[in-house]
Structure formats: structure tokens, C-alpha cells
């Protein structure tokens, strides 16, 4: 009951006509940017960060909420109407969604994606509201050693669970950690890795890193390999669903939500796994029910389930973000950076110190989610037209807004130079298949980990036992060991059984 009151207070703060306007602008801009090919939610938030600079904290939180959900929804529109998905979380949606669109059912695919996203996002956000205070209460008790261990676990999971190549995951992580080192040392004030540049004393602005690696890198990489053939966009009308579509969508929406939320809340790489699991589940259920299901020819269940899972996990990521200050996805990392520009440091103390802020954010997420549905269902045909923007102008526009974003941070050309350098890094990691998530988490978590490590070891006078003097820390280290050993052991086991260690994706494509 307590939670409900607090949430209602949050609504009270967020629901003014002016704030609703900001939410609407956020949703529109977020969807606009998210629909553009090559731009995922993380990049949408990073690119749109500067427009919130002049706003106060509440208004910018409301706008972020709109941008965040808008960016997510835009991504699914792209993957349904274009042949190829832009981000890993939309891969599963694209499989059946694009086939539905090709059969002339684009309107239904977009509708089930939008309504499923709304339902999953709403349930997910409500779950965040009920879980976060409890976890934050517990988290206040967590000492530096356990904190360090939890961050280590998060990095190990993200680095070793995702992607096909562990060495590349760790290379990404260490590049990120190195970038995180740049700047003045927190306790002694000595410059590290600044190369004598005074501009680097405060460290590299995370906005510049994110925009450089995501937007610049993506635009450069695409420029080097631009498809020189016209894109195949499937036209769509106003999204709607028939009675049969509703009947078939309910189950997948709810099951997708149930799968997505827990995966979002633990640091296991966001939406990739739950969308995959949801797809498999719906496919199995449909096969059992009908014998010859529509799967493979555009089944609505295959869009409804993964889309719900995607959005539920996007909501779930707010639990570690708000309760522990721990980002588990690239988007969460950018959101942390955004909050830091307002002097807000997410973490267990935030809930205690500025509860109204947290509740306003959660209420804003619910509002943004509802507005998304109201605004975007009628606008879908318009968004579909965006996909036809000529590619030279599209990528020129991305480079323009990336430069604008980086330049507006300090109005200093130095940041533009950094942007080009990080664009080069972004290009290189795409060329060499290095995952971007460990990199961006390394930038954010590296300095935090160092802080906690030194805090823990200062207390023990430098004795390494200071890292293991909490039960929770030892437990988490055990999980770290399991996370490292288990995949290797499983691989060995499979090989010894004569089963090729193939990617589970192949099963879907058959």
C-alpha cells in the first residue's frame, strides 16, 4: 500500500500539462530517432541527451522516459518493415514480423508489437516499483567488498555470456576500463592517462564516448560498407488487430513479460536471451496446439512474445539501475550518464535521499508507455515513410547530430576531436567483431569498481582479506567462478558427447 501511495505521489509530480507535453515530445523524438535504421535505443538516448540540458530534473526524467520507450518501439517498427533488424533484441521480432509484413499483415504485426510493448512495459514498471524499494533497503547494508564483487560478477556475465568470442568480449571490456581510467585519480588528484591535456582532467565525458562509439562508429562503419541498392520497405496502413489476433496475442504477451522481466533485472545482457526464449516457447506451444502452426510464415505469436519480452526486460533493467546503481545494458549505461549530468548518482542511497525523484521517474515511465501507444498507433504509416530517407542524407544527419551533441556538452572543439577518435574506436570494434556492451559498461563501472576496491582495502590496511570479509562477497565470488567455469565445462561435455557446440540461433533458421 505504501508503494502505491508513493507511486501516486510520483504521478502527482509528473502529471502536469507542461510535463505531459515534455513526455509527448520525448515519445515522438524517441520514436523518430529509433525508427531510423542503424539507431538502437541506447544511441537514441545518447543522441537526444543534449536537448534536455536546459530542463529541470523532473522534466528531463519525464522526457528520458518518453525517449527510452519511443526508441524501443521505433526499433521494432524498423525490424518488422525492413528485412534486417538493427539490434540484437529485435532479431527475434524480425523473423516472424517481417514475414507477416510480406504477407500483407504489417498492420497487425505493428499493432501486436505496440500493444504488447505497452502491456509488458506497464507490468514491468509496476514490478520495478514494488521490487526496487526492498532491494534498495537491503542494498544500503551492502559494504564495499560485496559491491566490488557484484560489479565484477556483472562484468564477467556480460562479457562471457554474450557473443561468440570470449576474447573479444574481454578486449571490449578492457578498452572500456582503460577509457574509464582517464582523468584525475579520485583520492590523490593525480592525472592518469591524460597525456597532458587539461581537458581530460575530468575524464572523458561519457556522452562523448557513447555518441562516438554508437553513432559515429555506426555511421562510419555503414559508410564503408553501404549497400548500394534500394531498400525494400513494406508499406503499412493504420495498425489494428482482428478478434482472432487478440485471442492469439494475449498469451504470448504475458509469457513474454514473465520471461523478460527477470532477465532484465539480472546482469545477463538485456533482452537478447529472453526474446530468444520467448520465441522458442511460443513456437513450441503453437506447434503442439495446431500441429502445423503458422510459424515460419509469419505467426503473430512470434511477434507478440519477443516484443513483450524485449520491453519487460527493458523495464527490468531499472531494478539494478535504481537499487544498486548498476547498469546492465548499454541503454542503462547511457541513462546513468544522463542522470549524472544532473548530479544524481543512482544507487541504494538515492532511494533514501531523493525518493520523490525515483517515484517521479517510475510514474513518468508509465506515462511515457501509455502515450507511446496513444500517439504511435495512428502515426505508424508516417514512421514507415521515414525508412525511405535516402541513405546519404540519413547518415549525414546522424553525423551532424552526433557532432552537435558532443559539441553542446562543453562548447569545446576538443570534444569533437574526441568524438572522431571514439568514432574510430567504434569503427574498429565493428570491424573486429568486438561487442560494444562490455566496452560501455567498462567505462561506467571501472571507476566505481576502483572506488569500492580502494574503500575495501583501505579498511583492511591493504590486506587482500579485506575483499572477502563479507558473506555476500564470498557468495558472489562463487557465482563469478561458476559463471566462468560452467560455459567451459558445458562446452567440454558437449564436445565429448559428440554434439557440435553450435549456436542455438541455427535451430531457429532451419
Amino acid at each position: 500500500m505504501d508503494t502505491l501511495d508513493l507511486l501516486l505521489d510520483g504521478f502527482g509530480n509528473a502529471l502536469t500539462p507542461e510535463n505531459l507535453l515534455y513526455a509527448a515530445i520525448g515519445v515522438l523524438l524517441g520514436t523518430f530517432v529509433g525508427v531510423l535504421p542503424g539507431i538502437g535505443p541506447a544511441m537514441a538516448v545518447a543522441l537526444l541527451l543534449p536537448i534536455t540540458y536546459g530542463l529541470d530534473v523532473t522534466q528531463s526524467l519525464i522526457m528520458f522516459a518518453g525517449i527510452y520507450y519511443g526508441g524501443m518501439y521505433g526499433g521494432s517498427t524498423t525490424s518488422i518493415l525492413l528485412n534486417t533488424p538493427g539490434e540484437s533484441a529485435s532479431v527475434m521480432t524480425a523473423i516472424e514480423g517481417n514475414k507477416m509484413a510480406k504477407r500483407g499483415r504489417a498492420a497487425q504485426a505493428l499493432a501486436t508489437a505496440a500493444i504488447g510493448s505497452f502491456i509488458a512495459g506497464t507490468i514491468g514498471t509496476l514490478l520495478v516499483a514494488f521490487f526496487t524499494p526492498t532491494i534498495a533497503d537491503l542494498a544500503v547494508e551492502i559494504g564495499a567488498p560485496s559491491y566490488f564483487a557484484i560489479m565484477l560478477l556483472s562484468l564477467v556475465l556480460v562479457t562471457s555470456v554474450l557473443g561468440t568470442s570470449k576474447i573479444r568480449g574481454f578486449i571490449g571490456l578492457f578498452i572500456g576500463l582503460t577509457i574509464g581510467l582517464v582523468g584525475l585519480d579520485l583520492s590523490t588528484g593525480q592525472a592518469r592517462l591524460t597525456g597532458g591535456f587539461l581537458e581530460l582532467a575530468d575524464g572523458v565525458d561519457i556522452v562523448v564516448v557513447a555518441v562516438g562509439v554508437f553513432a559515429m562508429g555506426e555511421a562510419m562503419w555503414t559508410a564503408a560498407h553501404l549497400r548500394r541498392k534500394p531498400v525494400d520497405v513494406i508499406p503499412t496502413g493504420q495498425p489494428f488487430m482482428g478478434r482472432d489476433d487478440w485471442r492469439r496475442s494475449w498469451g504470448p504477451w504475458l509469457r513474454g513479460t514473465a520471461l523478460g522481466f527477470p532477465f532484465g533485472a539480472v546482469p545477463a545482457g538485456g533482452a537478447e536471451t529472453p526474446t530468444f526464449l520467448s520465441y522458442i516457447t511460443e513456437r513450441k506451444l503453437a506447434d503442439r496446439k495446431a500441429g502445423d502452426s503458422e510459424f515460419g510464415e509469419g505467426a503473430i505469436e512470434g511477434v507478440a512474445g519477443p516484443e513483450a519480452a524485449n520491453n519487460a526486460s527493458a523495464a527490468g533493467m531499472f531494478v539494478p539501475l535504481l537499487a544498486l546503481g548498476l547498469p546492465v545494458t548499454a541503454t542503462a549505461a547511457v541513462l546513468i550518464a544522463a542522470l549524472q549530468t544532473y548530479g544524481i548518482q543512482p544507487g541504494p542511497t538515492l532511494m533514501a535521499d531523493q525518493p520523490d525523484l525515483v517515484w517521479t521517474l517510475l510514474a513518468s515511465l508509465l506515462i511515457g508507455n501509455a502515450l507511446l501507444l496513444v500517439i504511435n498507433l495512428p502515426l505508424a504509416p508516417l514512421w514507415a515513410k521515414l525508412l525511405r530517407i535516402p541513405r546519404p542524407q540519413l547518415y549525414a544527419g546522424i553525423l551532424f547530430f552526433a557532432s552537435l551533441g558532443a559539441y553542446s556538452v562543453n562548447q569545446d572543439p576538443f570534444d569533437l576531436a574526441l568524438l572522431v577518435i571514439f568514432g574510430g574506436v567504434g569503427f574498429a570494434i565493428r570491424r573486429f567483431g568486438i561487442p560494444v556492451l562490455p566496452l560501455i559498461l567498462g567505462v561506467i563501472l571501472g571507476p566505481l569498481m576502483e572506488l569500492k576496491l580502494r574503500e575495501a582495502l583501505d579498511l583492511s590496511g591493504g590486506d587482500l582479506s579485506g575483499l572477502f570479509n563479507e558473506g555476500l562477497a564470498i557468495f558472489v565470488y562463487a557465482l563469478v567462478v561458476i559463471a566462468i567455469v560452467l560455459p567451459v565445462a558445458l562446452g567440454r561435455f558437449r564436445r565429448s558427447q559428440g554434439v557440435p557446440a553450435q549456436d542455438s540461433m541455427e535451430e531457429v533458421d532451419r
Partner: protein
Amino acid sequence: MSAANDAVTRPARTVDKAQYGLAAALLIIGVYTIIDARGLTVGFGDPIGPRVFPYLIGSGMVVLSVLLAVATSRGDVAEAEAGEDVDVTSPADWLTVGKLVGILVLNLLLVNLLGWAVTGTLLFAGCAWALGSRTLLRDVLVGAVMSVASWYFFWELGVPLTPGILDGIL
């Protein structure tokens, strides 16, 4: 894992020579991180100090660069990232990338002198041209509208971008 797969699917061992370059770059960064950290002073009563973390990260980077070089020599090939507008099978178009970098560098050199409204226009039109657009006049107009509009937008937000030569006109 990909190394094992490639060994099965590709009888002729391919060595991605560019990956040696990446390994070398990582090695240099790792070593530089360690050297840079050696210059830091550790105060009394500070058991850890500012050096330990850079040492850990630098050494990790050195180890990774060696592992990458070994994997590369064994035929490990990168899986380049695909995307909506990306055709990974085509060779890299370095000319376009070079033009884009040139335009971006020109923008950062000139922005304080000419102002964002001017360089933003050049940036957009130049990038569109580099990417193959042949509607130069239209691109310049679109770029001008976007950069002047963004200048006023940020002015309203209380973030003054440089007016440059248009100081007093905007």
C-alpha cells in the same frame, strides 16, 4: 569457438592480418597504461594508491593482445557486425571513410572561427556528398536550416553554441 568452426568450414586457413594490427595497438595501449601509472606517487597511509588499478588493466590488456595474436595466427577471423544498411561482403570503402573523417576534422578546426551555423551546414552537406548524394544545393539548404535551427534551439536552452562570423546576425 569461431576458430573451431572456421577450421571445419574453411579448409584453407585464413589469417586476418589486420588483427595483428589490433593486437599491436592493444599492446601499446596496455604498456602505455602501465608506464603512465609508474609516474604516479603513492601517499603514506594509502595502502592501494592510484597505481594498482592501472597496473591491473594494463597487464590485462597486454595478456589479451598476446592471446589475440596467437588466436589470429591460428586462423581466428572476426565476425564483422551486420546491419540494416551494411553489406559486410563488400570490401571497405576507405575513400568514403577518409572523406568523412576529413570533413569532421575540418568542422572541429573551423567551428570556433566560423560558428556552428556555418560549419554545421558544411558538415551535413559535405557528409551527404561524401556518401554519394548528388543534390548538393538541396543538402546545403537542409544543412543550413538544421544548423541555424539547432543554434537557436540551444540558445533557448541556455547553451550558447559559437556564433562565429555570424555574431550579431543570429
